[in-house]
């Protein structure tokens, strides 16, 4: 049982780290602000959630696991709201989205 618990925790934490790494890469690699916001809101949220649930499984049935569940709920609620606030402000600011390579060729 304990071995199974550890294995599940390790898998969850590894996949969470992987998604957080991909989120970081996406923030640097994607072409404009709005697409970067996609990476920050979805991939990072998933990474943090997986990582925290891995920690909760590792802790087992205890108060720490309950607190970790609390942080999970908090992050899942607030992360989309925070990225929405940033993206909305950028839209009102007048930041123009990027519409793909096709447009750039046509404009040349």
């Amino acid at each position: 049982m304990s071995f199974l618990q550890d294995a599940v925790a390790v898998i969850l934490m590894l996949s969470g780290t992987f998604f957080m790494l991909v989120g970081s890469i996406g923030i640097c690699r994607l072409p404009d602000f709005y697409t970067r916001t996609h990476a920050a809101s979805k991939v990072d949220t998933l990474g943090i959630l997986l990582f925290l649930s891995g920690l909760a499984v590792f802790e087992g049935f205890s108060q720490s696991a309950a607190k970790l569940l609390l942080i999970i709920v908090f992050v899942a609620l607030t992360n989309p709201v925070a990225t929405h606030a940033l993206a909305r402000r950028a839209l009102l600011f007048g930041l123009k989205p990027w519409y793909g390579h096709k447009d750039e060729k046509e404009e040349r």
Partner: protein
Amino acid sequence: MNKTTVPSSFWMRYRGLILQALLLTALWLILSGRLVPIFFLWGFLSIALVMWLSHKLHGIPLAENEPCGATRINIPRLSVYLLWLVGEIVKSGVYVAYVVLHPKMPIQPMIVRFTSKQPNVLARVILGNSITLTPGTLTLDIDGSRFTVHALTRYTEEGLVSGDMEARVARLYMQECNAADMCCDIELITSGRGRRGRRGK
């Protein structure tokens, strides 16, 4: 402020406050974790303080032309919806990770505007957050019932305007609704020079 029909039964009338008190009690028990009488006392005092502070908030409407506490959310359906949303979070994370790691980055970003017939402002908020969490779409703005959404690819945009999620959200409040006519007046912006596609339903 508009005068709403006051629900008659005690439970329906004070449901929001009771639920909030229960939520705060659970939060305190999780956080404290010390089953000592004096911490129960402190917990009771602090929950009473927070309830007193937030009770003043209940009179403030959530949005313009929107009476507070007009409609009641259906809690059993909400829990089913949250479970579905967890699955969507996983799907969207995997999808965007695939897009990021793909060497050619198959994206074709576009902005979608549509009007959604949601019953009230809370439903719109839930829908906006769900749009942010589902694959490849991101809520940029909500103006009245007009949504501005940034979609990563064509495929995700089609999933968005099919109205499936809107119907799910609206079912939290209403009995039945048709997915086809939830979402109307769709406007696609796919280029920087005002080339727009319009699709009516």
